[in-house]
């Protein structure tokens, strides 16, 4: 059990991430781009290696020992992820490639499905917000174009928070689906998902939550959120790339038509037609990223007792409440520090209680907004990794009236020392290096 001594916790955690020992341009790496992807601890890296070294086999189709072992591990991983987000059981957890694929799966299934209840047809409405990542906007644009489904985009307030009044107005009796980010990947804003859910359900609509930036950073319980679908990516929470999760309420997933077809998602195949496998395999066609799933959810090989530790195990050992607290502290510290640098303009709620460890800002010099790429380039010269640009949320950038922003995003292995260094460098950049 890790004690609540911040400095020691983080040092112990940092040692598990060998990549943090790298030097960039001769300087120690300071990695503030966790919203883009997170690093992997030794435990997860070892699990990946162990799977392929000892347990590699295809699942579901074999009687032989290796196949059964791999199947057991993969199914356990599903159960562990279900428990992690408060789902009923593994039937509600579909492993996909990433959050984007999860959302697309829902879009395609609703669009082309034969289900009576879970579908989108001409004349229906889908409501999204202007702060959405492209993965939760573009699929619905396509749905609008292909099937003449109306798409409504709800505006935000200037501080980046959602205006529930506007949302209430946008939802009508024809709304079938409300899609929103749990947390904005640019501003870090935490949206009031339970309220949004209530508004949606009252009108008979379903709620899909893009949880890519929330599940890794705070306790998430799908029952408490009241969502019908939830999507997130493994690589943003210490797991490898190529594994993501779609949670869906079991009754809905039972009704829905698959998106990708092929092996393993079928129950029986005859030339006249095929029937589908049970949940969640109905939605996992072909050979899945079994290793990735285990690296995300973790599993125990029953005969030998060997524990293949997953990202979920690692995070649970720290505790998601702890993770949130740590980020809140860092966010508060960073916001204070940024405020002290002349010319820094911060977007978003400016309140650690209302946002996760994601902050978007720009630099203004001589009355003009400096190109974010220039600032990011100077930061990289000093070993500091941030992201600059539109962050795959161009409509949000438009709404904020900018071409792009600089984004810093934190995780469990970032420290206040790193922030001090960052603030010092940023100050130097603003004062001395920018024209």
């Amino acid at each position: 059990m890790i004690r609540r001594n911040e400095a020691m916790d983080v040092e112990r955690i940092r040692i598990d991430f060998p990549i943090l020992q790298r030097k960039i341009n001769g300087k120690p790496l300071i990695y503030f781009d966790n919203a883009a992807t997170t690093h992997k601890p030794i435990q997860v890296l070892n699990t990946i290696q162990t799977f392929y070294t000892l347990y590699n086999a295809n699942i579901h189709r074999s009687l032989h020992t290796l196949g059964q072992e791999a199947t057991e591990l993969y199914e356990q991983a599903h159960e562990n992820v279900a428990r992690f987000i408060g789902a009923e059981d593994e039937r509600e957890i579909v492993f996909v490639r990433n959050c984007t694929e999860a959302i697309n799966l829902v879009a395609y299934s609703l669009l082309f499905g034969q289900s009576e209840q879970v579908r989108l047809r001409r004349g229906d409405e889908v409501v999204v917000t202007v702060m959405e990542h492209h993965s939760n906007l573009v699929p619905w644009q396509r749905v609008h174009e292909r099937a003449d489904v109306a798409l409504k985009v709800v505006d935000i307030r200037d501080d980046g928070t959602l205006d529930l009044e506007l949302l209430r107005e946008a939802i009508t009796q024809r709304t079938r689906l409300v899609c929103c980010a749990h947390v904005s990947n640019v501003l870090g804003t935490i949206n009031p998902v339970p309220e949004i859910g209530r508004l949606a359900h009252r009108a008979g609509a379903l709620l899909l939550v893009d949880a890519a930036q929330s599940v890794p950073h705070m306790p998430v319980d799908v029952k408490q959120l009241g969502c019908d679908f939830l999507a997130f990516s493994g690589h943003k929470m210490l797991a490898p790339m190529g594994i993501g999760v779609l949670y869906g309420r079991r009754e809905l997933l039972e009704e829905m038509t698959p998106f990708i077809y092929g092996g393993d998602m079928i129950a029986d195949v005859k030339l006249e037609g095929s029937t589908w496998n049970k949940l969640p395999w109905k939605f996992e066609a072909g050979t899945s990223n079994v290793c990735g799933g285990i690296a995300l959810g973790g599993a125990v090989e029953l005969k030998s007792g060997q524990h293949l530790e997953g990202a979920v195990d690692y995070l649970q050992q720290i505790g998601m409440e702890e993770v949130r607290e740590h980020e809140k502290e860092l966010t508060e510290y960073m916001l204070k520090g940024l405020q002290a640098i002349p010319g820094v303009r911060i977007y978003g709620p400016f309140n650690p209680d209302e946002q996760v460890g994601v902050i978007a800002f720009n630099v203004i010099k001589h009355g003009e907004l400096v190109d974010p790429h220039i600032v990011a380039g100077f930061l990289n010269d000093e070993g500091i990794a941030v992201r600059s640009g539109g962050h795959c949320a161009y409509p949000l950038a438009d709404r904020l009236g900018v071409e792009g922003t600089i984004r810093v995003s934190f995780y469990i292995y970032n420290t206040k020392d790193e922030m001090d260094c960052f603030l010092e460098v940023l100050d130097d950049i603003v004062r001395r290096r920018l024209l």
Partner: protein
Amino acid sequence: MYSEKVLEHFRDPRNVGAIEGADGFGQAGGGPKCPEDLTYFWIRVSNGRLLEVKHKTLGCPVAIASSSITSAMAEGKTLQEALRITPEAVIEALGGIPERKMDSNLGPHALHRAIENYVSVHGGQR
């Protein structure tokens, strides 16, 4: 082929973890051949003996097995005895490994550095 012992220690590595407030800490990297291999060793010392030895290792089965068996061999030994745990001794304890892989060096090296760390901090108390 990996020997039985290597597989055993790979599937069930001994003494994995960190020691809070350790008396000594050492780390070793894989060198130019396996630069991404890495092992950390933590030790607790009492009356000149290794009371507790723990490690975290990233690497191939040989590296993990080497760290595991090193930690098992070192537990309870005096510092002098622990310093005599060499890569050769580890290879022998593992029942030999097919070719001289550098990753069997990591465990002993990190252990020795942890002992050196302890000695330098505690001024030669053996």
